[in-house]
């Protein structure tokens, strides 16, 4: 389950306590919120890893399947040297940067959501 829309107005209780209290006290509501956060974060992490894993992990297969790519040269250096020696690092760096950006935003949204009275 994923909490996509904070329908807090309808669900608010009379004494107006934030959901973080529910989380703290491990009520059913708190557990639902926490589980949705954990799933969202896990999904994000796995997604980033799958993307990078496919890109990097696909290279040996690509090299095995395509001799012309193995032997192609750019600026005097064979393409595999460019891919593994240089381009792999910006790829990993960009993926990490995107992950941090999205993970921090979803945590901020979550905090705002559960701290709202």
């Amino acid at each position, binding site marked *: 389950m994923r909490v996509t829309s904070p329908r807090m107005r309808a669900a608010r209780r009379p004494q107006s306590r934030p959901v*973080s209290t529910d*989380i*703290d006290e*491990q009520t059913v509501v*708190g*557990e639902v919120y*926490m589980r949705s*956060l*954990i799933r969202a*974060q*896990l999904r*994000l*992490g*796995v997604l*980033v*890893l799958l993307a*990078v*894993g496919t890109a*990097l*992990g696909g*290279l*040996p*297969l690509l*090299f*095995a399947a395509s001799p012309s790519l*193995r*032997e192609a040269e750019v600026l005097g250096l*064979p393409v*595999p*040297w460019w891919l*593994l*020696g*240089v381009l*792999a*690092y*910006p790829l*990993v*760096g960009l*993926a*990490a*940067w995107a*992950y*941090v950006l999205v*993970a*921090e935003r979803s*945590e*901020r949204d*979550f*905090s*705002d959501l*559960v*701290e709202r009275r």
Partner: protein
Amino acid sequence: MGDEQTVIAPAVGLTAVLLVAIATLGIGSVGMRISRTTSDFYVASRAVSPRWNASAIGGEYLSAASFLGVAGLVLVGGVDMLWFPVGYTAGYLVLLALVAAPLRRSGAYTLPDFAEQRLESAVVRTAASVLVAGIGVLYLLPQLQGAGLALRLVTGAPPWAGSALVAVVVVLNVLAGGMRSITFVQAFQYWLKLTAIAVPVVFLLLAWRADGMPDPVAAAEPEARETFSVTLSEDVVVGSEVATTIGVDGTDVDLAAGGSLTLDAGTRVTVPAGVPVPHADPLPQTDGRAWALPLSSGRDHPLYVTYSLLLALFFGTMGLPHVLVRFYTNPDGRAARRTTLVVIGLLGLFYLFPPVYGALGRIYTPDLLLSDRADAVVLALPGRLLGDPWGDLVGGLVVAGAFAAFLSTSSGLVVSVAGVVSQDLLGRRRRDAHPAGRNQAVRRFRAAAVLAVAVPFLLSLASYRVGLADTVGLAFALAASTFCPLLVLGIWWPRLTAAGAIAGLAAGGGLASAAVTVTMLAGPPNGWPGALLAQPAAWTVPVAFLVMVTVSLATASSRPRHVGRTMIRLHAPEGVALSARAAASAAPSGASAAPSGETVAADRTPAP
């Protein structure tokens, strides 16, 4: 050039080594004045900013395997070996995406702390402690061996001298200030290492241009550019794919294509200019084309070996004890993530350079292939390629970087292993809240530090013929088969039980250590068994996960009682006010007995 006695003027090399040692101890003693309490010793009171921390992680992580080993691998195996540095870097992406923030939020000091806190079992804690010590020793071994190799090349000293020097400096440094001083030292070491690997590349490439830019791929086998002589320091079997003629103790010996020749230690081998250089036996024989193109390094089953290596490097990083302990020095989970991001940038920057040495070595230092000293290529190139004053100066810089690598990685490993050993394997675990108890904890930590250096040092005396990056690769495989499933399932899967964790650690750790032992003692057999044993991660990691999940499901009734509370603490962002968090920062290791100093740590931890 010629004699392999020393690669640069011994006086310059020795000065460089001593300067790094003194600088390391000097910065360490500044740290000593600041570090007072036990928590300073262990995790620098968690007041280290992400930028310092990232430099320190980079400094600690770039070991002998990165500084010397990667270039040596590329010299021997060519483009396929570039997977090593890519994997070393991508391992941090896996760490970032699955482990970094929750682990920091757990508030645990060490891996065993995390294991006990999450699974509420002292047995899991002990199993994790034993594994930390094992992986630490496996990783320290190549550092000390690398130091022995390097000091010998630079000054002609016997191999044990370099290992002893590094061992002594590390012990002094760790005894002096523990983690806090180490953080400063490590941050300094990263920038020293980057300078020491990057600046010489500029000089080397200029010299290569001036030489007419010879192509490393051109020759079938690397050829001697000038006549050179090597005095072998140990017995070597050499072979060649093409017919060649080399001088052995002054007499010419013909080597037929595919033939081999046993040379005893002390033999003086001369290879005339333009003649193909034979390879030492364990090294794969590659012609220029095979060297430059992927999946043709001459190993059996290259596709399997490549994928299994990738798996070990990607998932092993998170299980290295000296990597994880650094994350506890971040102030919070968010900082832990940002630190990891910076680390990935720093590592990527560094790894652009070592392959250049490997490629140039193919042209200028083929004698290292003959004498089975490929790991020396980074140290040997400046003296070989550059003119008189520059060769020694640039060579001195490289030597300084290499020793920075040995010192920083060894220090980090010793701190983390000693922390675990002193808490869990030496003496009784208890809360040393009383000042006298606190002193006792510090004493125990120091004893453990000495022990953590002495064991791998003695082991390093036993053998000097292991490829640096290969040994490190085995440590990664062991970490990936044990701590990776423990951390990933522990953080993301509430149904993990203590019994499941223990079974998984035993299965993954047992299988991986068996493969490591066979490979290191007997050398890998040929064909599929060889490939499976030399690169075990592809089957040991899934087995470990499978066992952990299956046994956990079978023992579902014995789930940890406070798992709900633990999951909240691991995953709730800092912006959420929790009473659990207040409790967590007051007693960082939850149910476990952290070694005193908690109150100090809590004082300095920024309020969440």
